[in-house]
Structures are given as structure tokens and as C-alpha cells.
């Protein structure tokens, strides 16, 4: 991508600027301690929460933005952002699917999103969405019976302050990095999950979440705690395209797995990437980290990233418990002018810890796609094992793929393997499929989905198909 393109991209994005409708409960742009007090107050938070936010804010003032890795990015004006806006009232929302943009509905159709979820995803006023509300209620009862706490972060702060205080910031401390620290100061909402000892969460925490996902805000915070021997699978985001007036998204996700616990965290991210010139896209800077605190714990990240103008995220595992296991499965698609810098960090601390990394990057148009991964083996991590497989697929010759594996090993018993490949979507492969009667577009989809198979099979069943469709939609017209 040339500098000129970037300049143009930047210039146009500024034209659009940050437009925030002023409602009575929306704070004017800017950040200072009063703003933070105001947020905390409006959410009815206990004092520990406010103090934690303030410590984060004061620390943030001492920090500078990170070096932009492989990304080309316009400076962000942090005083130009409004840090609290009330959720849209039902009056502002469409009353029924008839009022929703038909193009959006067409996309839902292509993605195969179940009918009963479409209204909720399109932001139709909740009391109009009878189906999904009843679905959600049934789920809630089922979870309560099992003893699983699953609620919004705000509710957790009010109803389970002792759990929040105990776990918040233990994996991603408020000093962690520029964006995580900003998030710690101003986060608005997110999800909280607590799975008690020995409980296997009776369902995927996905459908429920998707229905309630509207309005998560730009500074989202999620905390999942899995006690000894428990098991939970969580799916964040959805394949439906998400538009948002907020350009900057800086979420934090913390996972804690105690002895023998397992957390499977899947993400499908499809934020608006901007148009084919990159205009209006979202910057997605996320800090995601899981700690296998106990022995035999397992944390598995699976992500399918197709959206955002700029994505910057490295879901990580701290393998503290002996025999603990970390996994990272990722598909990152960039098209047009999108940029992605994503990967993982596997930190081996305990003995016999093992990690697996499977990263599939697909670039089309003039997009740039980087894998950046760290595998670190500390001195005490006897017999740590890591296997990394990073594959890039290029479509056309104006896009780029980059792989940056960092390996730091301080224990000689470690066994680390890294494999990387870069391939072009082959004319030979396309011709072969077409000769058999398959259209060019279907052939591309087939080849791309084949390339991503090792990741897709890690997704919850209901989502694997949607994710495949998502890829097809994202790459529509990328070849030919």
C-alpha cells in the first residue's frame, strides 16, 4: 500500500469525523477525572470500582501510544471521543424488520443467520422481538439452575462485587498497555461469566449473547472465571455486519481457568471495514488474555476476523499451571484497504505446558495482513511444547502478508516448532475447479474455506457454517 493511499484514507476518515448526537445523558467529548467519576456514578458502582478506574486513568496519563507495528494509522484524538453515551432508546430503533435496511437483511440471509435472531441483530426494539426474548429467558433459567452466573458487567459489579473485585485486572492489570489502561478507566459494559467448581456449562454461551449483543459500546470489558473442573464455551460477536459510529474500539477480555478447568472462547468479528476506499472503518484494538492458573487447565481461543479497517489484537495464554494447555486458532481476512496485525502470545511458566497456534491469514485487494506471535518459555517450564502453523493466502498481487514469529526460550527441555507458508490462490486450482463445472466464485470460496478448515472445525457447530458464509461474503469479487 502506498503512502498516498494511506493519506487519502486518513483524509477521508477525518471528513466523516466523530459525530455524536447530543442526548441529555451523553457526555460531551473529552476525558478527565470528572468524566470517570460521572461514568461510575451513572452506573451506580461501589467505591472500589471507581478507585480502580481512577488509578488506571492516572496511569494512562503517563503512557504513550504503542508503536504501530505493521500498521499505517492516523493519530487518534482522545479528547474528541465521548466516553459515555446512553444506549439508544427504543423510540430511536426500528419498530420491526420492515423498517430495517433491506441490504442488511439480504446479508443476514447470505450468512444463514436464524430468522428469530435477525430482528434482534438489526436493532429492532426489544419488545418487538418476541421470539428472541423468550429464547433468552429460557436460557437464563437453565443457567441459573446450573449455578452459572452470566450477566452484563455492570450487573456483576452491582450484584457480585466480591467476585469482580477478586478477579478484575488479575490477568490484564490496569497498567498493561495503552488501550487496556484506557479501557480500565472508562469501560462502559461487557459480559461477566462465573462457572462454579465442577460445573459444565449446560450450553454454549453464544446464542444468548448474540441476541443481547446490541450496544456493547466501544470500551467493552469481559471477565470469565472457570473454577476447578468446570467447563465453558463462549462465543463473542456475530457474523452479521456491525456498524458503529464509534471509530475506536478498545476492548479487554480476561479469562481465568483454575485446576482442570476449560474455557473455549470463540470470536467472530465483523465490524464495518470501511468502504472499498477504507472510509468509515472501525479501529479494533483489543487486549485478550487468558490465564491457566491451575494444573491441567485449558484455554482455547478461536477467532474469525473479517471486519474493521484496522485490527490489532493478540489473544494470549499464560500457562502457569503444570500441564496446562493453550490454543490459538485464527482466520484473519483482509480485503480492500483493511489492515490486520494479529497473532498470539503463549507464555509457558508451568511444567509440561503445551500450546498450539494455527493462524490462517487471507489477503485480497490492497490489504495488509500480519501475523505476530510470541512463544516464551520461562526457566521453570520444563518440557514445554509449542507447535505453530502460520499460513498466508494471497489473492491478487497488490496485497501483502507478513509473519513475525518471536521465540524466547529459557529452558533447554522445551520443544518449539514453527512452520509458515505463503501461497497464492492458484490459477491452477481455479482452473481445475472450473473445468469440473464449478463457477469461479464458488471455486474461490471452496479453496479459501479449505484453507481455513483447521480453524473452522474449532468453532461451535452452529457457527462453522455461518463463518464459512461470512468468508464468502467478505471476499465477494476479490478474484476476477
Amino acid at each position, binding site marked *: 500500500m502506498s503512502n498516498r493511499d494511506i493519506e487519502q484514507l486518513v483524509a477521508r476518515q477525518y471528513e466523516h469525523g466523530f459525530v455524536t448526537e447530543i442526548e441529555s445523558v451523553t457526555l460531551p467529548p473529552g476525558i478527565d477525572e470528572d468524566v470517570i467519576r460521572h461514568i461510575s456514578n451513572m452506573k451506580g458502582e461501589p467505591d472500589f470500582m471507581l478507585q480502580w478506574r481512577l488509578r488506571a486513568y492516572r496511569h494512562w496519563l503517563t503512557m504513550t501510544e504503542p508503536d504501530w507495528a505493521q500498521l499505517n494509522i492516523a493519530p487518534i484524538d482522545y479528547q474528541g471521543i465521548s466516553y459515555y453515551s446512553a444506549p439508544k432508546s427504543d423510540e430511536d430503533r426500528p419498530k420491526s424488520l420492515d423498517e430495517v435496511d433491506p441490504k442488511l437483511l439480504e446479508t443476514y440471509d447470505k450468512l444463514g443467520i436464524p430468522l428469530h435472531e435477525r430482528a434482534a441483530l438489526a436493532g429492532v426494539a426489544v419488545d418487538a422481538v418476541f421470539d428472541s426474548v423468550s429464547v433468552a429467558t429460557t436460557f437464563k433459567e437453565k443457567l441459573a439452575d446450573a449455578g452459572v452466573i452470566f450477566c452484563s458487567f455492570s450487573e456483576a459489579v452491582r450484584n457480585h462485587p466480591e467476585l469482580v473485585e477478586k478477579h478484575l485486572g488479575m490477568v490484564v492489570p490496569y497498567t498493561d498497555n495503552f488501550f487496556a489502561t484506557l479501557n480500565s478507566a472508562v469501560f462502559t459494559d461487557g459480559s461477566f461469566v462465573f462457572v462454579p467448581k465442577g460445573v459444565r456449562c449446560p450450553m454454549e454461551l453464544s446464542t444468548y449473547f448474540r441476541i443481547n449483543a446490541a450496544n456493547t459500546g466501544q470500551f467493552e470489558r469481559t471477565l470469565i472465571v472457570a473454577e476447578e473442573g468446570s467447563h465453558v464455551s463462549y462465543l463473542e460477536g456475530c457474523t452479521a455486519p456491525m456498524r458503529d459510529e464509534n471509530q475506536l474500539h478498545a476492548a479487554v477480555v480476561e479469562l481465568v481457568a483454575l485446576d482442570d478447568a476449560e474455557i473455549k472462547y470463540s470470536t467472530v468479528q465483523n465490524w464495518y471495514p470501511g468502504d472499498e476506499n477504507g472510509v468509515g472503518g472501525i479501529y479494533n484494538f483489543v487486549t485478550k488474555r487468558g490465564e491457566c492458573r491451575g494444573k491441567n487447565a485449558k484455554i482455547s481461543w478461536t477467532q474469525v476476523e473479517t471486519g474493521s479497517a484496522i485490527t490489532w489484537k493478540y489473544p494470549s495464554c499464560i500457562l502457569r499451571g503444570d500441564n496446562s494447555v493453550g490454543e490459538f486458532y485464527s482466520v484473519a481476512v483482509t480485503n480492500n484497504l483493511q489492515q490486520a496485525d494479529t497473532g498470539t502470545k503463549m507464555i509457558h511458566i508451568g511444567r509440561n505446558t503445551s500450546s498450539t497456534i494455527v493462524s490462517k491469514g487471507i489477503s485480497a485487494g490492497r490489504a495488509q495482513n500480519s501475523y505476530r506471535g510470541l512463544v516464551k518459555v520461562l526457566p521453570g517450564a520444563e518440557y514445554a511444547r509449542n507447535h505453530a502453523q502460520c499460513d498466508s493466502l494471497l489473492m491478487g498481487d497488490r496485497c501483502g502478508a507478513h509473519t513475525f514469529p518471536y521465540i524466547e526460550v529459557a529452558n533447554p527441555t522445551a520443544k518449539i516448532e514453527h512452520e509458515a507458508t505463503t501461497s497464492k490462490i*492458484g490459477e491452477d486450482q481455479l482452473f481445475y475447479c472450473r473445468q469440473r463445472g464449478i463457477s*469461479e466464485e*464458488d471455486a474461490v470460496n471452496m479453496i479459501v474455506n479449505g484453507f481455513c478448515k483447521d480453524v473452522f472445525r474449532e468453532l461451535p457447530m452452529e457457527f462453522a457454517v455461518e463463518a464459512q458464509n461470512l468468508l464468502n461474503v467478505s471476499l465477494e469479487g476479490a478474484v476476477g
Partner: protein
Amino acid sequence: MLSIRNLHARADDMEILKGVNLEIPAGEVHALMGPNGSGKSTLAQIIAGREDFKVTAGEVRYRDIDLLELTPEQRAHEGVFLAFQYPVEIPGVNNVYLLKAALNAQRRHRGETELDAFEFLQLVREKMQLMQMDESFLNRGVNEDFSGGEKKRNEVLQMTILEPTLAVLDETDSGLDIDALKVVANGVNSLRDASRSMLLVTHYQRLLDYIEPDVVHVLADGKIVRSGGKELALELEERGYDWLQSGNAA
């Protein structure tokens, strides 16, 4: 029937086909032989619609359709099939998935109902038996880590399922041991009938012991330099291509 007239084609700056004339009536099997680099694969790929080659003169008609006007997938829908000399690997895409997509795309085009998973599997199983292939093939990636012989068998399997009306087989016999050769020949022969035309590109007379051709052509330096009955293949086996080229060089 396939009718090629005065076909000239080039890749980059090199002229590869220099006026090929070839007619294959319905129901006939023709063999195409000739030295390495004479343009056999080029001809096969042009029939199938490969865009790497530029046709500079001549025509390729099949059943009164101008093939050169059609995309590769449209040609497939018209019944054109190419068994590739070097079948490509498509990692992660199931063999059976590709095959089902291909068959159903063709059926859609012909206005037939698509086969469901069950019907399709039944059909594949039957053809796999004919080709003496193990079921494990189905769920492997397309040609992924196949041996040379397995790839060739797979091409013929696809052909028996797609039932093309014009089949071009590009050195499908190369690299096969004698048992595999018999199996492949068996598969090809199972499709022989009065409505189909076939073109077998081969270097070896031994394939023609199992698939008897109606006509044998020899391509040298971009032209058909000799056509004859199956005894021509035997003669070539004995005397080599030099015998022909020296005789036709002028």
C-alpha cells in the same frame, strides 16, 4: 463431434500450435501421440478453456458450439472433461465435496435435480468400486498427498461420475503400474459409447492395448504430422518419432 480447424496458439511469445486439424466423430476414441514439448497438453488445455494460451487463428467446435467463446465452466456444462496431466492439490477441500459440487453444478445447468448427499454417496461408492479405490479417498483433500498413480485414478473416477460427452485424457497412463493401468482403462472403457468422443494423449502403445483407438494421430512441433489406424502406434513404438519428423520436416 469435435472439430478443430487450423488452430494456432501461443503462450507468451512462443507459438506452440501451428495449425492443428483434428476431427473426432461421436462414438470414436482417438489417440494423440508425439514427442515431449510438441504441444499435446497445450491442445488439451485449450479445448478445456485454459486462459494462459492465446488462440491466434482457427476454430474449435464441439456439437456445433464454438468452444472458444465459452468459459471453462460453461464448457464443462456442455460435457467437456479434461483429465489433467498434473492434477493440482487443493488442501482442505474434500474430494467428495468438490465432486458433488461439480456434479450438481452440471446437473443444474442441464435442468436436472441435484443429487442429495445420500444419492451422491451411492453413486460415488459404485464408481469407486469400478476404479478399485478405497473409501478413505473420499474424505481426503483433493489430490492432497496422493501418489502419482492415485491422482490419475482420481481423475478417471471424476470422469466416470461426471459422464462427459467429450473426454480429453492427458497422459493418464503415465506413472501407472500394469494393474493400475488396467483399472484406469476399465474406467475409460466403461464410458465408451456411440455418443461420446474421446482424445487420449499418451506416449505409450501399451495403453492402447487396453483402450483400442479408432484413429492415432501424431503431433510434432505444433502440427498433426501423421494420422492412421492403431498399427501406427505400434510402428511408432518400434521406430520412434524421429522416423516421422525426418520424413515430414520439409
